């Protein structure tokens, strides 16, 4: 069935501030879903806590508005329970790279087929402007009055170093590119990350649209860039300080679903639980 963006819209009025980058992310996700012809009921958007986390309330599909930092374990449980679903996890930079960094890296290792969208605004938006793990060094906020002291997380570098199979970066200034990158991520079999530079117009006066327009390099227009080579990708990230957009790396990947013993094509959720006593008697023999 052909899908349109409207299929993924709800009547809920977004609570985001006017101009917030998250609007573009939502639109891009809706476009991507339409392009892929997904059925809303076959999609679960798992979101975290943050301004970004509200996405799941505005996107027309099943939604799972999780805990702060815990989108990925939730998405993992959902996907393994029903592999027929398209599972998209979405959250903020604080959510995913701060409190949730552990799950992020272990999810890359586990390689379940979920797509992770991080709405990266380099700030804690919902809690009103504290620095985040991706905040630039020296960024002054209510919790870093003299500027942040921690070295920023380099999420893409980390993801590459941990062996991710698909990683891309989009920017709210270009929702069409975003949509394409998300399409690629959803199509990729295995864990994928699309880091989405989504400016917070209210609390982050450093990493603004203008700042990014000036500084972002679009890899798509660089014909020499080879997105199938992890080493080159890593190199590029170091050179550019991750200030790029486009597909950064895509490689081979075998999702956990294909290696988990006994796990088959019929989703767990559809398995018949009513098993004859006979079989249980046999199972009990193992304890004899």
């Amino acid at each position, binding site marked *: 069935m052909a899908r349109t963006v409207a299929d993924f819209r709800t009547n809920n009025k977004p609570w985001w501030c006017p101009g917030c980058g998250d609007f573009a992310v939502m639109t891009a996700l809706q476009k991507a879903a339409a392009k892929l012809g997904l059925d809303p*009921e076959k999609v679960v958007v798992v979101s975290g806590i943050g301004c970004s986390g509200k996405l799941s*309330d505005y996107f027309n599909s099943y*939604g799972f508005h999780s805990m702060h930092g*815990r989108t990925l*374990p939730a998405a993992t449980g959902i996907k*393994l329970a029903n592999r027929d679903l398209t599972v998209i996890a979405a959250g903020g930079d604080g959510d995913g790279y701060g409190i949730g960094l552990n799950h992020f890296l*272990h999810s890359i290792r586990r390689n379940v087929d979920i797509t992770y969208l991080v709405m990266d605004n380099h700030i804690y938006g919902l809690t009103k402007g504290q620095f985040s793990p991706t905040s630039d060094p020296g960024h002054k906020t209510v919790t870093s009055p003299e500027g942040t002291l921690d070295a920023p997380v380099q999420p893409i570098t980390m993801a590459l170093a941990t062996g991710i199979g698909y990683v891309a970066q989009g920017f709210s200034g270009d929702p069409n590119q975003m949509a394409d990158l998300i399409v690629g991520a959803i199509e990729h079999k295995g864990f994928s990350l699309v880091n989405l530079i989504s400016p917070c117009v209210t609390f982050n006066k450093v990493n603004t649209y203008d700042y990014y327009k000036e500084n972002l390099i679009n890899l798509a227009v660089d014909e020499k860039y080879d997105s199938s080579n992890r080493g080159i990708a890593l190199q590029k990230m170091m050179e550019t300080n991750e200030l790029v957009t486009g597909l950064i790396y895509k490689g081979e990947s075998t999702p956990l679903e294909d290696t988990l013993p*006994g796990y088959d094509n019929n989703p767990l959720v559809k398995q018949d639980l009513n098993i004859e006593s006979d079989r249980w008697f046999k199972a*009990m023999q193992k304890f*004899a």
Partner: protein
Amino acid sequence: MKKEVSWVVGGQQGEGIDSTGEILAAALNRLGYHIYGYRTFSSRIKGGHTNYTIRISTERVVGNAEKIDILLAFDQDSITRLGENLAKGAIVITDADGKVSIPAELGINHVAVPMTQISKDLGNTLMKNTVGLGVSAALMGLGKEDFAAIIKEQFERKGEKVVNLNTEAFMKGYQFIKDASIDLSSTELLPGDGKRRYMMSGNEAAGFGALVGGCRFLAAYPITPASEIMQYLIKEMPNYHGAAIQVEDEIASLIMAIGAGYTGVRSMTSTSGPGLSLMMEALGYAGMTESPVVIIDVQRAGPSTGMATKHEQSDLYEMVYGSHGDLARIVLTPGTVEEVFYDTALAFNLAEKYQVPVIVALDMALGLCKQTVEVFDFDTINIDRGQVMTEEELEKLGSDFKRYLLTENGVSPRSLPGQKHGLYLATGVEHDPSGHIFEGRENRVKMVDKRFKKLEGAAKELKGHSLEYLGSENPDLLTIGWGGTKGQLTETYQTLKEEGYNVAHLHFRAVSPFPKEQVQAYIYAAKKVLIVENNSSGQLGNIIAQAIDIDRNRVQKLLKYDGNPFIAAEIISRCREVL
């Protein structure tokens, strides 16, 4: 000849003490004895004392005996630690190498058997345990043929030669006792009934119960003494096409299980205290989103890391009151291996019917001790998925489906991701009946009440289940316990009753929802009450006090928190004092 004998083997960790116990237990099971096996060990892999106690009886036994009849002492610790627990007439076996010395004042029957020497003579010192098994079999007056079969089974995969050598080692030990003229009156057993039962630990019963109860998803993290549950399920789950995985931590494990539960798969995690504490945030999330999920907590001695290999029942507070905010949850507290099996299976029904997190509490002894059980009654287990909507039902509602519909009993119809017309948002934020985030005042109150209302239904369903009452209606003394103390408390009750006392026992098989009216009636009808718990706060006692007006002068507590389970004799003597 005796109805019951208590046998212990003690030695250094890593020396095969465990497998000696396991083989003996397996053999005794074949002979139709009832068995309860208890391991003492420490957070150490090799070295350090360990011992394996097997209580063998012609009748059902749950819990350790007070005294030891046969002690196979492979190290000095076996004597220092267990010497004082020897029964009158007990026989102590040591190796003839003289490394273990017996203090004269113990005044026991001591037999030195050249176990190492026999083993060496056969070309391999590793078999001294097998010699010890032969000694034990002879002391109990058992037929050696039965053991031969087991030894064969046990060592088969190591090749025929090993089987033969071990058989020989066994026979040598057996013969040594036969040749020595020893008074076996304290150690010889009446014959077993020849009926082979099943040997199962509580952890295994939990894993098996989960499978039978329809669980097809487990995410967990290793932790003593709960790891066996995940290990069992990881091994077995492929046969049922489910998914059972070890993940990065307990936070992830519960959340994954909640995700799977939300999606419509019966799901669980298993852990012990430290893991449970890490799950507190997610527990609240399961409650708020009304996602079914089962958590098994095999308690160990706390707080903090505590004593990872020691026994306690002290997580009840956290199970009942943990997580911030007002949260409804169900807490089941099975008391025996059989109850663990049935209650784990039941937990999945409850989780789905009432759309709440369900915690099943085990404790270390219950989790690890192997016990003989009869075949389970699988026909009593039926899977009730609760109010899961079909696509047809959803279609009828059109766009009107309300996931958190306010209903009489608080339970709302549930759609599952993938179903058309069932779209909704599950959120830990307060929401309206359709699932949208909403913080209106009236809505808030209704939603809070709705979530607690569900426990009333659960309470009704559990009415005949939460409590088990034994004994007279107006007892002079009512003992109360929960979870794994059931065996010892039942034994206490029986002993006192046989002694002519007017006693009763109340076992809590579920603590939340709290069966207030019934407990009240039982307590009010008793002259005196003794609450018996393996913790220092008297956690259940306090939960009871919270719920009912209780005349504290009539109530006493017996609390044990030294890291070990009760022995019936301890409880019995305290009861006699109180009576």
